[in-house]
């Protein structure tokens, strides 16, 4: 297919192909023109299949790893909140992201230790591989998503002290990874009411993800005490509250042509879909909360 707005040849006026397009670009229909091949690698799976007109037998490339069932349940819930039954993004949503990626940690890094009697010490090394994040997907927010795997139903609440540290692998020297930076915070959760706990680690991970780090290695250490912090928390019985190793959620703004840009439709409807759209520049603060947005809707910014 010829790219938009380019005159190939005009029988009457004798206009030749525009100077910068030479004959080599007129490849057979199926072979992508040179410029598109670089973009091809960035295409999400859905568009890769569409652009190959389904020749690529996608079933044979069925995902090798099946996603974690808990993570799948969470993302289905997020989908229901974000889209109508027909799959159209809900217009009453004024969030800035148009992409959410959920990564589960690679398995071999999980190990648990600690003595349940002294409060459940839950420490785990997490390695997240972020290869799937494309260069056009800009980070707005990152969240560690915990879920509770309570085999014994408990009604009390939990207060946890959490230490989060990122491990830097200095591949040149095989010394064990040094810790580049760490944060500590406390967490109070009513286990009975919540299945998920979302811990915002945007400012913590932003430096890594902004530098297109493909692998993030972090250690998360939780010390949880049962009961209400005001009264002295007692450990009546050991509760095997297993904090399932968290998933990493990335809220992203995909600025590629194929992605839907909500603020475009909030501000103005494109009259002529054929005319290539000018990219609307969007100054976005990574945490997404103080981001300056170009959507004209007052209600949208006030709701923030």
């Amino acid at each position, binding site marked *: 297919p010829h790219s938009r707005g380019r005159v190939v040849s005009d*029988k009457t006026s004798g206009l030749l192909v525009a100077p910068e397009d030479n004959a080599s670009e007129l490849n057979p229909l199926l072979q992508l023109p040179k410029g598109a091949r670089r973009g091809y690698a960035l295409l*999400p*799976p*859905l*568009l890769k*299949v569409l652009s190959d007109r*389904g020749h690529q037998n*996608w*079933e044979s*490339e*069925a*995902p*090798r*790893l*099946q*996603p974690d069932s808990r*993570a*799948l349940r969470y*993302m*289905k819930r*997020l*989908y229901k909140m*974000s*889209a109508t*039954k*027909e*799959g*159209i*993004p809900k217009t009453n949503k004024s969030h800035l992201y*148009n*992409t*959410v*990626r*959920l*990564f*589960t940690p690679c398995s071999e890094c999980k190990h648990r230790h600690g003595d349940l009697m002294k409060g459940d010490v839950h420490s785990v090394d997490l390695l997240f*591989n972020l*290869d*799937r994040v494309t260069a056009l997907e800009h980070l707005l927010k990152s969240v560690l998503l915990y879920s509770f795997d309570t085999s014994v139903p408990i009604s009390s609440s939990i207060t946890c002290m959490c230490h989060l540290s990122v491990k830097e692998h200095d591949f040149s020297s095989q010394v064990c990874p040094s810790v580049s930076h760490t944060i500590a915070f406390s967490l109070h959760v009513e286990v009975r009411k919540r299945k998920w706990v979302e811990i915002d680690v945007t400012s913590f991970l932003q430096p890594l993800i902004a530098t297109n780090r493909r692998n993030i290695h972090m250690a998360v250490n939780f010390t949880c005490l049962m009961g209400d912090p005001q009264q002295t928390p007692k450990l009546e019985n050991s509760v095997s509250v297993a904090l399932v190793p968290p998933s990493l959620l990335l809220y992203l703004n*995909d600025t590629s*042509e*194929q*992605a*839907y*840009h*909500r603020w475009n439709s909030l501000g103005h*409807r494109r009259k002529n*879909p*054929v005319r290539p759209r000018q990219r609307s520049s969007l100054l976005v603060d990574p945490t997404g909360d103080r981001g300056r947005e170009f959507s004209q809707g007052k209600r949208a910014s006030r709701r923030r």
Partner: protein
Amino acid sequence: RDENLKAAPATSPYNLSEYFKQFLFPQNECELHNFRLSFSQLKWDKWIIAPHRYSPQYCKGDCPRVVGHRYGSPVHTMVQNIIYEKLDSTVPKPSCVPAEYSPLSVLTIEPDGSIVYKEYEDMIATKCTCR
């Protein structure tokens, strides 16, 4: 226009307007048609988690000579129609194509087992035009 009148069959005034309608609103008029597919038909349901079904819709039909406001067509469409009829029939007639779209939210499993929710632009045709 006079030639057409002579060719017109002897019709009563009531049918005359009906007769002329065929020139303005062809039977097989350019319009939006429904098409509903499920990703299992394409065997993509293993990695596309949601939605299960999707209606991309499509545009089909003839573009009458006088398109104008009814199809939201630019003047160029009428010019191309005249070129086709009067100057060079190898220049294609204007086609009935989508003019506006809706986005679609899709939940997929990536090859590495991660899960992605993404909102794609221009996935569902909502209006047709002659271009």
